[in-house]
């Protein structure tokens, strides 16, 4: 590993302010982007593998291969959002700086995911339940995301109006990320379901969120329940 790469990776974790300052000044964008891409790929690949380890076998490989793509595709969609939002909030910056900032923030998240991966792997082995695995994985992702938000906030310029801009960009990023991850399911895989690379398209994340909300309130979608029942029967699965 070159000294430059190692230095940038260390700075991503330990000195987010210096990374944000470099990006704001347009300095070292390539070395930051190079280190960020590497961190993003490695961090999400390992974390994906750990998430897939809940089910084991081929799902580890599938989840490890898919999670970097969730990050990449989300970034490809949310960088233009950040760029446009900055212009709308009257603090325009070159597109390259918006790309580098989002990339660096995501890389910091990925590095924290990498750090959390061993603990999550252990927890998944100890707590075998599907729902516990979902909650733990989501919590880990949320915790790592906070590290990325810190860098993003620092890179958004003067304090006045920064919170609103951050809220807007984060909302867009979270929605995009959730939809992309939803499109590339399954991740943990229920014990009753088959291991596949990607499930056929089925609604959107927002629809699923609404459905889950109704289910939690005791209101069930009978059409969907019947379709699932038919699917289970076709696979010969117990109810």
């Amino acid at each position, binding site marked *: 590993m070159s000294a430059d790469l190692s230095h940038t990776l260390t700075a991503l974790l330990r000195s987010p302010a210096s990374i944000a300052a470099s990006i704001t*000044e*347009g*300095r*070292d*964008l*390539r070395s930051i*982007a*190079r280190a960020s*891409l590497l961190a993003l*790929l490695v961090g999400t690949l390992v974390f994906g593998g750990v998430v897939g380890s809940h089910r084991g076998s081929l799902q580890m490989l599938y989840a490890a291969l898919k999670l970097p793509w969730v990050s*990449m595709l989300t*970034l*490809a969609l949310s*960088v233009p959002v950040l760029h446009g939002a900055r212009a709308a909030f009257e603090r325009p910056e*070159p*597109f*390259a*700086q918006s*790309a*580098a900032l*989002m*990339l660096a923030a995501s890389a910091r998240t990925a590095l924290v995911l990498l750090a959390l991966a061993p603990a999550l792997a252990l927890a998944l082995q100890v707590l075998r339940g599907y729902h516990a695995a979902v909650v733990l994985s989501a919590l880990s992702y949320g915790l790592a995301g906070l590290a990325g938000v810190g860098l993003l906030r620092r890179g958004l310029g003067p304090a006045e109006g920064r919170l609103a801009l951050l809220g807007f960009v984060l909302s867009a990023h979270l929605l995009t990320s959730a939809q992309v991850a939803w499109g590339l399911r399954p991740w943990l895989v229920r014990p009753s379901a088959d291991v596949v690379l990607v499930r056929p398209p089925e609604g959107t994340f927002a629809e699923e969120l609404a459905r889950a909300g109704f289910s939690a309130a005791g209101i069930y979608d009978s059409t969907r329940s019947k379709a699932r029942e038919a699917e289970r029967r076709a696979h010969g699965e117990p109810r």
Partner: protein
Amino acid sequence: MPMYFGVGALAAVVLARREATPAARATTAAAALLAWPLWAPIALSREPPARGPSTRGPEARILRALEEALEAVRGTPLATLLPQRSVEAMRASVARASQRVGELEAAVALPSHDPERARRRLEGLEAEGASSRTLATARVHLDNIERLARLLSRERRALDELADLCDALRSQLVLARYAGSNLHGIGDTVDEVAARVDGLDGVFHLEETEAPP
């Protein structure tokens, strides 16, 4: 997916050709192929001109003098007076100080940091009978600008004085090598250079602890 990688392959070819070394070409090609929506704008952006080591000014004089002094004592008993490791540490301190001077020069050169402008603004506000709060803000701004200018002047002076001292050290060492000289005197000069170099890092702190005039 094929379209994504198709565009990525095109970006990889175009962007890799812009790189100078095979390693950089390989890295750029891989990054562009996998993440062209993110990498391409960054690779196509222009970096601001890097501030390389200057070849003029006190920093260059100091570095040159240290290099020549090192050369003069190499392979002689005088080498113990000026170890390579000490010279490396001095170079690093001088580079830091020089960078600070560059940053301060850039800050002082900003139109918003023009002391004349800030003074005129303060006088204008006083003439208008502005509120005490507005006047206090303008005074703080002017005071900050003047402190920045003083700091820059102090850093420049420290580097100039160090450059003179390094020149003296070099000539002393060259003389000692060929004509013999008082080692004690040379040791004192080396100590003085080391102390001045250490002092470079303390210039900011000195400014911070000083009471305002």
